[in-house]
């Protein structure tokens, strides 16, 4: 039943890319944020396919529940400008569009050629992860071998929190 998973993955990938394009091409910033939410959910599903369901949960909780709220709030606080991708836009930004397309091709070519090198040596890369019991392994590793990660994150997020609060408060409120 490999084809079923493959087809699902391709479907979700295409939807994700379409949503990402929608994020950039839609008229209103608020809609862009909504499209971003769908993109993020798509990426989370990709993680599920890659065998990392824990990160799926984290992605949706943190990104969709946390960061996106920030985006929506700040969009509503900063006002939203109309924006449209049309022919005139393409004419103005022809160089930028070209650069992006070239970037896509070079990047894909690079990654696939590296993978190709892998194949030449006879070590074909296959998906290693098994879904069952994996969250446990991951958390054990997080608290044993990678035990410095969470403290560092704590300090980082705390300082980010303080910094953003300091930035947003007005002078007279301080």
């Amino acid at each position, binding site marked *: 039943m490999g084809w079923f998973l493959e087809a699902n993955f391709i479907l979700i990938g295409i939807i994700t890319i379409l949503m990402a394009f929608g994020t950039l091409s839609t008229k209103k910033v608020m809609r862009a944020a909504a499209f971003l939410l769908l993109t993020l959910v798509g990426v989370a599903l990709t993680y599920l396919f890659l065998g990392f369901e824990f990160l799926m949960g984290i992605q949706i909780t943190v990104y969709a529940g946390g960061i996106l709220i920030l985006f929506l709030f700040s969009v509503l606080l900063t006002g939203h400008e109309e924006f449209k991708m049309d022919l005139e836009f393409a004419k103005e930004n022809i*160089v*930028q569009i070209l*650069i*992006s397309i*070239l*970037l896509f091709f*070079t*990047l894909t*070519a*690079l990654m696939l*050629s*590296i993978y190709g*090198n892998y194949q030449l040596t006879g070590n074909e890369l296959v998906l290693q992860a098994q879904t069952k019991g994996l969250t446990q392994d991951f958390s054990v590793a997080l608290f044993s071998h990678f035990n410095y990660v969470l403290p560092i994150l704590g300090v980082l997020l705390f300082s980010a929190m303080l910094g953003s609060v300091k930035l947003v408060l007005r002078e007279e409120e301080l």
Partner: protein
Amino acid sequence: MESEIIYYALGVVTSPFIGSLILTIFAFIHYAKTHGHEETEENNHEEHEEHGLKYTPLENFVSTIGILSIFASWVFMLLLAIKFFTTEHHGAFLTTSYDFFGFPVTQNIQVGLLVDALSVYMGLIVTTLALLIHMYAREYMHGDKGYPRFFATFNFFTGIMLSLVFSSSFFELFIFWELVGLSSYLLIGFWIFKPSAAHAAKKAFLYNKVGDVALLSGFLILYKLTGTLNFMELPDKIHNLTPLQTALISVLIFGGVIGKSAQFPLYTWLADAMEGPTPVSAILHSSTMVKAGVYMVARVFFLYWQAHEGEYNFAGDNWALAVVAWVAAITALLAGLQALVENEIKRILAYSTVSQISYMVLALGAGSKTAAMYHLLSHATFKALLFLTAGAVIHVVHTNNIWEMGNLRKKIPKTFTAMLIGAIGLSGFPGISGFWSKDAVLATVYYSDVPGNKILFTLGVVTAFITALYTTRFIIVVFFREPTPENIERVEHAHDGGFFLTIPPLIMAALVILESLTFIPTPIFKFEEWLMEWLEPGVHAHEVALTLPILSAIVVLLGIGTGIYLYYYNYNILASLNQNKVIIPIREFIAQRYYIDKVLYWIANVPAMIVSRLLQDIDIKIIDRTIIDTWIVKGSLGLAKISDVFDQGIIDGIVNGVWMIALTLGRAFRKLQTGIVSNYASIFAAALVIFLGYVNFLIFIK
């Protein structure tokens, strides 16, 4: 099991420090709140109604914390002692040690806790007495502005002494040795507004330092020769040393003891240290600071014994123990004589302490750790008791001079009872604790093979006589003699202190009696042999002839009788003795402390002055006038001219050229910076494309 012992020991050592830490923080907050009101003599002696003895909340809090932390330490110590003495650990060491910082230079220098019979024995004495003295200090220090500061320092002092007792290496011991010096400095100079106290503190500190230099050099030589400082490893490594080296090291280490334990010629600081509050004197003399020296010698006794091993020939190298014994014997006699002529009650006790410590050191010099520790136990108890009661006496009559007191036995019966018991112990009255331990010391000296041991024994007996005499003297003068007319009023108003001023001395008196009962040698249990079994397993005591204790008892009774005769029944003889033309200069000589202070001052001062005068001349005439004024000034002027030319011409030119280049380039490149984020990002992305394309190209070629 072992870990349990170590945890108990940790508890013993850390609890006073925890109390001290809390109190220190509290004291800082308190003094910050009261804006550091200067402590002065006026506001320090606030008179209070004795019946209305009320502790302020501050005092209640501070003393509770202080006493509780020491109590915790005491409980831990009891648990530790029970655990240690009920399990089989004859001579076994239990220790945890940590490498000190792991520097390559400090290899084998370790920090840890060493729990053996000696340290448990000593720790038991220290904690018990410290607990009682803390309780005493609760009332004694009542009304003092420095109450929090006192308890903080006091706890710190106790903790330091306990840490010293449980030290596992010379290095660690030295650290705490110095900290003992520091905290005694703080406590002796506790009443900072009194110039005499400040002076005494400085004196104690400096006299100690002289000895500490000897100690430091002693154990550094030891480290150089053996490569270790751990007490556990040293006994094995010591056999490789030559007798001369061992003896040298032993004598140098004994130098530290001379300073800290107040031996001849550095003992005069101890009497001046009486400027501190009475609880400080009590703890300083009974169990902590001055006993640290005795404890250290006992701790490294294998070193002295090693120096002593083999045939004893004075012409050869083995003279370490002899030095120890002779210094101790001389100190004992000199200090005893001095106690006989002193008038201040605390100073009498101080000189008595010096004399008694010398007994312990004498026992060590005669080769018996057991006898020394035996006498340490009995002396610690009754000396603490004597100081506490002396403090109580001073507290109620407000004077230090014994001739201004008199007939106090009916006014302060509880204090009198306690002090009498302590004095009987000190005098060595037959059957009381002091008698048995002193007897052990004298027997050890008599049977030892130190050169001149018979002379040492005689000196010891004479000192015993003097001890009995001065003890009787101050007891009679303070408690039995009628007071002089001008002092009657002062004495009339005296009465016993409050709960904490009377109960701890009474407990101590009970302890003295308990010890006396324990020390009586019976066929079933002999305390000395039991102690020897723990401290020096494998060594057996001499069979002591019955004549020695009888002789000692006779001498002591003689001393007491003389005292009673001289100071109570026939006071006229004493008066005529004081007028005697032969006695007066001797008396003056003793009262001036044999001019030791003056000699020491001369030794320290005169050579230094001569050398510094010489150096001053050299400095002014040769260095200032010749070298600096002529050579250096002219030379630097010439150099300055050359560098001026170099600076103006070459360096300025380079700098100017650089800024001109930067300006030109900046004008050219300024056009590139549009200030718009998107443009930068586009260029960045384009560069990324080019870079990735290049990498692709490389892979393709490969």
